[in-house]
Every structure is written in C-alpha cells, then in structure tokens.
C-alpha cells in the first residue's frame, strides 16, 4: 500500500494534474487582457492587372501597412501571426478571401510596425470578375499562446476598388 511504486505513481499523477491546471489557468488569464489594436492599409500602386492564359484575373499591388498590435501580447503569448487578406464577392462565389501578406510577430516590441511591400501571395480570382471590383482589406491576427487556447480577431477596412480596365 505504501510501496515505492505506489507512491511514485501517486506523485506523478498529482504533478501532471497540477501542471495541467496551471496551463489551464494561464490560458484562462488571457481572457482578461484589454486589447486595443489598430491598423491602416493603403494601396500605393496597382503594379499590373491582367487576365491569365487560363482565364483567371490576376492583380499585383503595392501596399502600405501600418499597425499597432502591441496590446495583443500577454505574458502567455508566444507569437502573433498577422495577415492581410483581400475579401470580395463575385457572382459565383459568396466569399473570396485571398491572403496577400503575412508575418510572424514574435515579440511585443515588433508589433508596432510600418511596412511597404508588394503582395507576397498572388492575388488570383476564380474567373475574371476583378475589373471595377470593390473589396475589403482585412487585417487578421491569430494569437498563439505559450499554452492553451488560441484566439483570433480582425479589423475590416473597406472602400478599396480595382481599376475598371486591365493594365
């Protein structure tokens, strides 16, 4: 009843239970953080806008992205994954989401940034619906914790429009 094996087993179970409990509390504490992220995106230039040989539209843009995501970091945050997606509707598709750029932010200090780049991933439509298309640019972020529940949110910025003709 009080053998070494029995005691070792009880100790191990207890230790694992406490560890799991601590991880759960660490994750739960993330619910209480006050988050006030902000962002702005500007389209500086439409680099080119063409119809591919298969018939799908493709556009290349240069974006200017400013964001302050520092308030998303808690003591239980390992990294924040941020990305900008173009979101629009077409006659065939109720929703299209195309990621244009993403970044991994490992530390709070790097979360207040300004960047000017052309789209990292190709902006290709399913079809040729992009001429004169209104679309939103949404900055999404996914907070990856050191342990526990991941959570995500976004800021939707609307009012962007592609040119009426290819160029």
């Amino acid at each position: 009843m009080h053998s070494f094996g029995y005691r070792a087993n009880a100790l191990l179970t207890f230790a694992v239970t406490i560890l799991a409990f601590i991880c759960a509390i660490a994750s739960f504490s993330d619910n209480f953080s006050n988050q006030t992220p902000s962002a702005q995106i500007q389209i500086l230039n439409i680099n080119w806008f063409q119809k591919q040989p298969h018939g799908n539209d493709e556009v290349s843009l240069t974006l200017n992205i400013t964001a302050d995501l520092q308030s998303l970091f808690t003591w239980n945050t390992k990294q924040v994954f941020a990305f900008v997606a173009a979101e629009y509707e077409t006659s065939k598709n109720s929703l299209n989401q195309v990621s244009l750029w993403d970044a991994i932010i490992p530390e709070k200090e790097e979360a207040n940034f300004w960047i000017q780049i052309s789209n990292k991933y190709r902006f290709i439509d399913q079809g040729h619906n992009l001429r004169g298309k209104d679309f939103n640019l949404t900055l999404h972020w996914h907070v990856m914790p050191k342990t526990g529940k991941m959570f995500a949110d976004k800021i939707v910025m609307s009012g962007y429009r592609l040119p009426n003709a290819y160029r």
Partner: protein
Amino acid sequence: MIVTSSLIIWKALICVTGSESPVVVVLSESMEPGFQRGDILFLHMSKDPIRAGEIVVFNIDGRDIPIVHRVIKVHERKNTGEVDVLTKGDNNPGDDRLLYAKGQVWLHRHHIMGRSVGFLPYVGWVTIIMTEKPIIKYILIGALGLLVISSRD
C-alpha cells in the same frame, strides 16, 4: 491511476470536440516557430465555414499522416456552400499545392478533419519517441507489467 485518468480524459475529449482524433502531435517544422515538433494540438470540428487564417488539420488522399497548416485562400460557392481552400505552412516558402494529390489544386471540406483551437508544448514527445524508437515502447510496457505483477499484496 494515471492510465485510467488518461483514458477518461481522452474519451471525454472525443465527446466534447466532436472529432475522431481530438488531439494531434506536431511532427514537422513547417509551422515553426509557433508549433514545434513534439507539441500537441487540440482540435475541434464545427459546422462553421472554413475561413482564412484558421489552422486546419487535413488528410491528402493517398497519404496517411495528417498535415497541420494554415488556410491562406478561401473561395466559397454561393449556391452550394462548397469551398475551395489553399493552405500553407507558416515556415514554408510556398503554398501546399506541391503536397496535394496529383492534379489537385484546392482542398475541400471533406479533406479537413478539424481546426486547431488550443495547444500544449512538449507533451507530444512521448508519442514521437514511442513511434520512432519502438524499443522504448516495449521497455515502458514491460516496466508497467512488472509493476502490476510485483505490487500485488
């Protein structure tokens, strides 16, 4: 004690998350630095539509190991609600089209087993060690067996 409580927790997780395999172990470095080899991911599958940014676990026809990557493109059909999805590992330079089956350009809903909703570091090393060095598995089972036999009093 530890074995029975692990089994209870496992079965409870299957019920709560509504998924056949509610926990997966991260096996590759394609999602670093967020997910390292040996971490475990808690999965959840709901009827909610698949959206960009979500980390999904999917199976490719013909491969038996599930892949855990992030969705970067979504095209959802108006009439049927069906969805074309493209994924990419955070740490990979290119998207997953090279990993998909020959001729496959998009993933569909039925390929996706679950979304990752939570994460625990390091715990998955037990599974990796036992899979890659089966001798450890035999030693462990042997030791547990000896413990059961010798503690009869």
